[in-house]
């Protein structure tokens, strides 16, 4: 079995195990929280591993070294963010995270992770043009891009209204700022879904296309994750159960950049 297939199977197994565990404990919110914590750890570690492996594949000064260096930095910082959330889950089950002292380091981590990931994604979306290739955008692409961008901006407005309401204490302010930074970066990332997937489409049939497909799909999953309260409403489940199930998309959203990194490494080293 090739490393590429092993990586794809690993990502699928992580997501399937996470989903199966959530389904098994759907009536037990405390257990579901533990499952999300374990799933988040596994997926974010995989994401960081693959992104770092990709960054190490390219020589210093190369364009892709910068792209994967930024995506890897973002992924590693997300692992650190996961550690903070995990510490909170295990040590303070009765305390709202916004009241925790951990909210200050989380603000720093989230800001740095979002800055690195967003800049890395921008460079990845720009890679085709940077290589000297130029394919005019079609009207269909422009329409799709406009629709996704409009949805991203709508999400941003709704989310910012929620987050800007809670500035009554330093901890709540830090927590609100964390949410706002994350929302702004998410908006930028979601707007880049279409350009990243367009590159994958232009390279369809080639081994490199998989890298852009997987990164683009990761962002699509973040879009689903960000829309989870809207998606959960029509589902024939208790709201908390529906949200717990949709939350599972965070798992592949975290691990897909790692898979993309491994795919890129395998193509570049000629092993896939």
């Amino acid at each position, binding site marked *: 079995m090739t490393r590429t297939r092993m990586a794809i199977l690993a990502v699928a197994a992580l997501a399937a195990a996470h989903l199966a565990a959530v389904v098994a404990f759907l009536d037990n919110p405390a257990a579901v929280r533990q499952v999300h914590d374990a799933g988040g750890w596994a997926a974010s570690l995989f994401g960081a591993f693959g992104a770092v492996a990709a960054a190490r594949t390219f020589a210093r000064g190369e364009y*892709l070294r910068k792209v994967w260096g930024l995506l890897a930095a973002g992924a590693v910082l997300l692992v650190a963010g996961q550690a903070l959330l995990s510490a909170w889950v295990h040590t303070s089950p009765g305390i709202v995270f916004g009241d925790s002292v951990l909210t200050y380091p989380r603000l720093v981590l989230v800001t740095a992770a979002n800055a690195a990931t967003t800049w890395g994604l921008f460079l990845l979306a720009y890679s*085709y043009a940077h*290589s*000297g*290739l130029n394919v005019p955008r079609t009207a269909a692409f422009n329409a799709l891009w406009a629709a996704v961008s409009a949805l991203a901006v709508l999400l941003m407005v709704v989310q910012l209204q929620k987050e800007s309401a809670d500035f009554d204490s330093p901890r709540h302010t830090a927590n609100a700022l964390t949410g706002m930074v994350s929302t702004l970066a998410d908006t930028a990332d979601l707007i880049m879904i279409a350009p990243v997937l367009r590159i994958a489409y232009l*390279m*369809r*049939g*080639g081994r490199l296309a998989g890298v852009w497909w997987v990164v683009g799909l990761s962002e699509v999953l973040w879009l689903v994750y960000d829309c989870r309260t809207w998606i959960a409403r029509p589902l024939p489940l208790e709201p908390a159960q529906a949200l717990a199930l949709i939350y599972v998309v965070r798992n592949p959203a975290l691990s897909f950049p790692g898979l993309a990194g491994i795919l890129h490494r395998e193509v570049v080293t000629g092993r896939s």
Partner: protein
Amino acid sequence: MVPRVATTTTTPDGRTYSTVVEQRLTPLLGPFTARMALKTFSTSKLGRAPEEISRADVPALLDALRPMLNTLVGSARAGAVLDELKKELAGT
């Protein structure tokens, strides 16, 4: 049977030089981007259409493709792909 005589734009097996390059790039970049790369760089760097590329133009074409490949697969893989192409075309 009289063997086919290679023209300046075709290899002894009858493929155009641009086709040889395109076929080598396709597994990596996909057929659309491989064709687009040839069109873009043969036009912009050599001033001619891909099917007009002659044996003498090949080194310049490969040099023109190098920055694009460096960006998408890194310099090591780009060098390997271009070396394979040079070897394949060496006997033509």
